[in-house]
Each structure stands twice: as C-alpha cells, then as structure tokens.
C-alpha cells in the first residue's frame, strides 16, 4: 500500500520578485515517509528556492510569486502560515552561523518546540532525544560558538529534529564545512536515513558524501524544469552522461569511471563510491598504465573532459621542475611564528620554514584551526610576521609600503566584497595602478586589458556590489593582479561556492599559473588540491608537517597525519591489490586517455 505523501508539489513555478523568469518551472513530485530524496541541478536552476517553498517560506516570508500548489501533509502552503507548516517540515540551511539564535546548545534545541508551545516536559524530552542523536547531549550547556563548524551544523540538524516534523529539508548542509565536518554531518544523516522515520529532502553538491544515503534523485535542468525523477543508484549509473550534459556534478568515482570508459576501460555497473571504484578496478585483469603526474593532459573532477596543454615557449610544463629549482624562491620563510590578536594573543603558526619557487601552484591544507589562513596572511604581509622571517621577492611584506607590496603580492580574501573600495568596476581596477603612480593613459590601457581578460568589459561602469558572484570573484582577482604582482595568494577561494563557480575560478588560476604567476591557495577541498596544485604544504596545529610535490604528498602519510582524508580518487586507488602502478593515481589527469583524446 502507498502511504499518503507528506509533501505533494503540483506544477510549482516560483518567480522571485524582480526576476525575469521563473525558476523552478512546472515542478511536480511527491515525497512519502521514509524516502531520502536528493535534489540536483546546475546552479541557478532554483533548487534552493524550491526548498524554501516546501515549508511555506515561499511565498509567506520571501518576496516571490508561487504558481501551482504545494501541499504539506495535505495542507495548501498558500493558505497556512509558516508556523503551521513548520509542524510538518523542518529546515536546515547552509550557513550554520545564520541559524543560531540563543546562547546555549540546549536553549537552541528547545527554541523551536518552545515556539510550538509544547509543554516543558515535552520540550526537554525532544531536546534530549535530538541532542543524543547528533552526539551533542554532553555539550548542552556550552555556547554554540564553541562548537566546530560540523558541530554547529549537527546542532542545526538537532534543532530541526526537535520540531518533531516528519519531513526534514536540508539545503546544502555541508557547503561551509571542512572534510571532518562533512563526515560528522553525514554520519548523522546516515542514521536518520536508516531509521526510515523521516522523509529527507537534500540539496547537495558534494555527491561523494551524499550518494550512499539517498534512494531517489530529482534533477532540474538549467531552466528549472524537472527532467529526471528516479531511483538514485540506477539514475547515476544509467543516465550519467545525461547528468553530465545537464551540468550536474557526479561523484568523483563515477566521473573517473566515465573517463576510463572513454579510454577503453569499461566498468559495469558504473561505480558511485571510491570503494566501488576500487573494487571494480581490482576485478579487471589488466589496466592500461596511468599517466605520470606531470603529463600534459589536463582533466579535473570539476571539468573531467581531458584536454591537452601545449608546452608554451616561455615555461615548458614538462620540464618546469628543472627550471624551477634553479630559480630563486618567490617566498622564503624561516622560523616563522605568528600570534593572533597582538603581542599577547595565542601563537597560531609555529616555526614554519617554507620555500615557494616561482611558478609553483602551492596549496596549503589542514583542518580548521590548523593555522592555514594565518600562515598565508603572514606570508603576504596581511598579518605582521617577526622582522626577517619572511622574504617575498626581495621585500619583507609586513614592513614594505602598500605600493611595494602590491607590486609583488596580490591577496584575494575569501569574500570578494570585503575588498571592494570603489563605486565602479573600472575604478576598482584603476585604484591599484593609481597607487603605483601610473599616469592616466597607462591606467586606461591596463584597465581595458584587465576588463577584457576577465570578461568584464561590458560592466566597466557597474557598481562592484551589483555583479554576479562569479564576476565579483573575477574582479577581485583582477584587482590583485593589475599592479603586475607575480604572486597571487588566495584564502579559501572556493569556500561556500557551488562547483561551477569553483571550477571557473580554479581554471582561471591555472591559466594564470601557466603564464608564470606563482599561486598560493589555502583550501580544504583535497580533490581540488589534487587536481590543480603542483605542490602541497600540510599544516597541523600551526606546525608545518611537510611540503612537497603534490603527487608525493598525496601518496605519502602526511594527509592522514594532519587529520585530513584523502581525496576520493586516491581513496579508490590506494587499496588496489592487482594494480600497484595505480597506487599513485590521485588526480583525474593521471587517468589513461586514448590516443584520439585531447580535443
């Protein structure tokens, strides 16, 4: 028998106030108790908007126009306020910090049932059950600020569970978390999925984490129309090409299998997790030899189609390491220790010795609180380092004046808006040159060139805050580079962004790096690191565990020592019994290609 659906959407279209068209459009589906539904689609297709409609925030709290009907436990969402609908649907949002409103973990979990006028005993009983499920009961008296990112997001899930609603809607719950936090959150979600007591609707880009707990996928296309609604594993396996064509991200293991299929290695069925990929590879008697880490084939988890880079005349990629070792380092740090918050603040970076050669693409990795950002900021002179401990292209960055520094180092903060200082895009770019004392003609030419380079030429007179997210990011990189800085430092450039935007940015960084710009990034997305970085520095507790070529670091023990997890591809290949040559395969570009590939 079929239980009555908890959620029922009938031809739902939503148009945000001022938006030219509706996204999503004409979406109909129903969700029953016990289902775990993954909602997928390229960015801008209206997934998040759709989740807001599931508990009546659209149209009641968000200025948007709703067509069609959303029924929550049989109630028309248009006719019932959010307060009533929230008895049936609980929400978890992306940013854990924007969901916390009280001063202790216990008060936070009690907040919703108190609003629902449950009796005191009931409030406490629900709070205890929810906190025990997410593993925070022992920390109930603490201020939520003291929890880690993963802990705060688990708290947000507990808060949603305490509402005793049968439907749980999660909108990218792990986008702002580091890998450890993502694992914590998915451990909780897996438990919920196993209980089959709730219906779960999940929007998630990180499919590697999500794929083994969901049982149904709903896919929207770029227009916001529902194009696929089917069982998860079969959909990923049988319609993988279709999903890729839609601009939807697949699990890294599936992408890798698709790449291998193009190279003549057929894995059937397509693997969805690193374990499945590993098992499938091991089952094959023969595998073609993987490419070396420095092969000119370009392919990443973000853009898996292989492309070939042609060695340029200036910086031949293939023997770059030979020329690099001869060059003077771009960054040289010796015995670098950094305190946060002045002389008496805690030491967050301990005695780091680090050389970064010109032309490197260095990724600094580590868990939250390992001191990655502090290290990057002190290397770039944003945070003062002790005199003489850092040398960047001949200057001490913390003591040089802004002009000298801007000529050598471009620093890009996590949120591009923080760095904008002018009222037009053109002025924003010109400012860096004006600081150098360039004359107007020179400024104009350079600004024009930069606008073209980053595809912003139409937007010269636009206010920087009115750009789209990707444009803002490009502009912030442009402002960092316009004074001719040969070194670019970026703090968590992909944090909280969807994969399309992350891919755009990283491809841009790679292009700059190919032209000779030294790039240093702080990140905790290790598959990105594996695919893009030439070198990796691993930090733990403010100390540098080691630094080396990306392939060596990823193949060695440092990643685990730092409390990080190997990227998905490395996890699949490390355990291969029959193909030892594949143990060092950590990046998409190492997968074999047919001779015909490379378009």
């Amino acid at each position, binding site marked *: 028998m079929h239980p009555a659906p908890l959620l029922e959407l009938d031809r739902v279209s939503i148009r945000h106030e001022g938006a030219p068209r509706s996204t999503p459009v004409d979406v109909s589906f129903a969700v029953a108790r016990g289902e775990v539904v993954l909602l997928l689609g390229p960015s801008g297709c209206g997934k998040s908007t759709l989740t807001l409609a599931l508990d009546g925030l659209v149209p009641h709290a968000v200025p948007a126009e709703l067509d069609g009907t959303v029924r929550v436990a049989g109630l028309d969402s248009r006719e019932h306020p959010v307060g009533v609908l929230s008895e049936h649907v609980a929400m978890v949002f992306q940013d854990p910090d*924007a969901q*916390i409103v009280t*001063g202790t973990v216990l008060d936070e979990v009690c907040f919703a049932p108190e609003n629902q006028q449950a009796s005191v005993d009931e409030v406490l009983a629900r709070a205890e059950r929810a906190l025990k499920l997410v593993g925070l009961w022992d920390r109930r008296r603490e201020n939520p600020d*003291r929890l880690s990112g993963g802990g705060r997001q688990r708290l947000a899930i507990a808060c949603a569970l305490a509402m005793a609603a049968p439907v749980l809607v999660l909108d990218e719950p792990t986008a702002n978390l580091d890998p450890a936090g993502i694992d914590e959150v998915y451990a909780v979600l897996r438990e919920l999925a196993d209980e089959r007591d709730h219906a779960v609707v999940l929007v998630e880009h990180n499919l590697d984490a999500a794929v083994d707990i969901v049982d149904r996928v709903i896919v929207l296309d770029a227009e916001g129309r529902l194009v696929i609604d089917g069982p998860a594993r079969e959909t990923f396996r049988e319609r993988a090409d279709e999903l890729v064509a839609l601009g939807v991200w697949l699990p890294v293991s599936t992408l890798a299998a698709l790449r291998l299929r193009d190279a003549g290695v057929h894995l059937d069925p397509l693997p969805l997790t690193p374990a499945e990929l590993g098992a499938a590879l091991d089952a094959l008697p023969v595998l073609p030899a993987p490419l070396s880490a420095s092969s000119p084939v370009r392919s990443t988890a973000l853009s898996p189609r292989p492309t070939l880079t042609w060695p340029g005349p200036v910086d031949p990629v293939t023997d770059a390491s030979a020329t690099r070792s001869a060059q003077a380092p771009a960054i040289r740090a010796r015995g670098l220790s950094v305190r946060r918050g002045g002389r008496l603040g805690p030491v967050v970076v301990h005695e780091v010795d680090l050389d970064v050669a010109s032309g490197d693409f260095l990724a600094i990795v580590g868990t*939250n609180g390992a001191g990655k950002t502090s290290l990057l900021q002190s290397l770039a002179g944003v945070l003062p380092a002790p005199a003489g401990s850092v040398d960047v292209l001949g200057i001490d960055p913390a003591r040089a004046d802004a002009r000298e520094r801007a000529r050598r180092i471009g620093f890009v903060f996590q949120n591009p808006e923080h760095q904008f200082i002018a009222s037009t895009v053109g002025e924003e770019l010109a400012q860096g040159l004006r600081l150098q004392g360039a004359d107007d003609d020179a400024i104009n030419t350079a600004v024009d060139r930069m606008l073209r380079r980053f595809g912003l030429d139409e937007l010269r007179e636009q206010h920087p805050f009115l750009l789209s997210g990707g444009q803002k990011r490009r502009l912030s990189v442009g402002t960092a580079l316009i004074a001719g800085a040969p070194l670019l430092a970026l703090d968590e450039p992909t944090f909280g962004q969807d994969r399309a935007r992350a891919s755009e940015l990283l491809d841009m960084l790679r292009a700059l790096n190919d032209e000779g710009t030294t790039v240093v990034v702080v990140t905790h997305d290790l598959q990105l690191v594996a695919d893009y970085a030439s070198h990796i520095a691993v930090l733990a507790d403010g100390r540098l565990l080691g630094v080396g070529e990306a392939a060596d670091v990823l193949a060695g023990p440092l990643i685990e020592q730092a409390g990080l997890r190997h990227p998905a591809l490395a996890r699949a290949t490390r355990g291969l019994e029959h193909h030892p040559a594949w143990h060092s395969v950590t990046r998409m570009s190492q997968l074999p290609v047919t001779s015909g590939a490379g378009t």
Partner: protein
Amino acid sequence: MSAAPASAGAPAGSGDVPGDAGTGASVAVAVDPFAPRTRAGRGGFLAALNPLAKLAAPVPVMILVVFSRGIALPLAIAAFAMVVLLAGTRLPGRAVVALLLGAPAAALLLGVTFGIWVDPATVAGSAEASVALFSVGDWTFTLAAYLVGLATALRIVAILLLSLIAGVTSTGPDLVRAMVQNLRVPYRIGYTALAALRFVPRFGHELEIIRAAHRVRGTDAGRGPIASVRRLIGYAVPLLASAIRHAERVALAMDARAFGAHPTRTERHLSPWRARDTVFVAAFLVVSALIAWWALGWGR
C-alpha cells in the same frame, strides 16, 4: 584603566575557544551577552531575585549619584553597593580581592587624572587650595583640585558597582525572559533582540577582515580626518551588505522554526516576581535614601 571591578563579571577561561584561531575569538569574548553564568552567579541571595528587581533597585540610585556632588554620597553608596555585592553573591576569592582593592585604587587614581583638569581658579577660595600636593613648573596640583577629581571618580566607581548588582548574577537571556514574563514585552521583540545581539561579535570579526582587506588594497594611505571618514564609508558598504544578507538568513531560519507562530511561547524558566523582589527593591531604596540623607547632611 579602571577595569578591575568590571572584570569580576567576565567569563573565565576565555582563551580556549576551539575552531579557527584566526576567526576573532577574542572579539567574541569581549562582548558575549550569552556568557555562561560564572560561579558567582549561582549562589547568594542576588541570584534568587528576579532580574528586573536587580535592575529596578539600583537604577534610581544611579541617577541620584549622577547628580550628586561632593565625596560623601558616592563614597557611601559605593560602599553600600559593595556590601550588597559581597553579601549577595558568592564571588570567587580573586574577584573579591579585585573588588575590594581595585575599586578604591581605581577611584584614587582616576581622582588624579580628573583633578588635573580642574581649573585652579574655581577652587581657589577653599582651605584645601593652599595644600599643594605636587607641582610642575608654575602649575601646582592642590588638594582642592584632587578632591574635585576624586568626587567625579567616586561617582563613576559607585555607578559601576551599582550596575554590577544587576550584571554579576543575571545574563541577557534572564533579563529578556523577565521582561517578557513580567513587563509584557512581546516575546517577538525580546527574543529577536537577543538573537540580534549575536550579530555583534560577528560584525566585529567581519570589520576586522574588511579593514585588513582594504589595507591590502592600499586605501589606508591618506591621513587626516577626511581620509579617515572616507575609509569608514568604505568599510560601511561591505559591512552593511553582509549584515543585511545575514539578517535575512537568520530571519528565515527563525521563521522556519515556528518563531512568532503563536501569540505566546513555552517558557522553560519561569521568572516570577515574588514578594522577596518587592522587599529587596524597597529595602534597597530605603537604605539608599537613608544614606543619601545622612551623607548630604554630613557632607554640607
């Protein structure tokens, strides 16, 4: 500089905040309206009172102190507030010492700094004006000037101590609960204000990042008031943009959790106004009035 008495109410062990060490933990600690009650907040008769009583009693006295003159009244009130604090709370030993030594030391020291600003001509007539404490060149620091400075300093210390009566034993949420339950302040306003308080440390941290980001762009080059005003406007735009976005998200999250769905909400902690609260307020005001009457009669 006179932070000693105030430190009694600050949370202990603020250094061990987990998470990214760079994310402004220090700022968060400086203004944390949700700071857990210190041990001091758990014992003593003050903790058992309604937070509103602890506010209603000292506030009229504070106003009286603001408009008082001379040394006797603020001194006597400060001593009274100190007695209430020490008797009504179980402060840890260090805080008691800080209170007993810090408050007088702060008053004496502040007296000098305020006294320096006193125009010698205004106190020239009195007997104390002829007692020189020390002199630098032509300028002499007289006892009369010091007494004027000391009176100001004592008023500040007395007000600080009075505010500690409310501050040491109740937290922000306690006060909001009491206002909602006893003063019929709508809970939507009370709890929204409380949620908004969480924004403060966040914005402090955000401002720090924005300043660093602008420094990197080289916008701190100019000097003088015009450049600094321009800088402030430059900080305000990104700060406001992110504040509005954050506020919208918090509002959605609160709506989604049924905030405001019903005219009332369950209160796990009742905060009734009991007879002892009335007694405390009345007794506090009567004793203060007696002190004032005695101090003014003796002081003039």
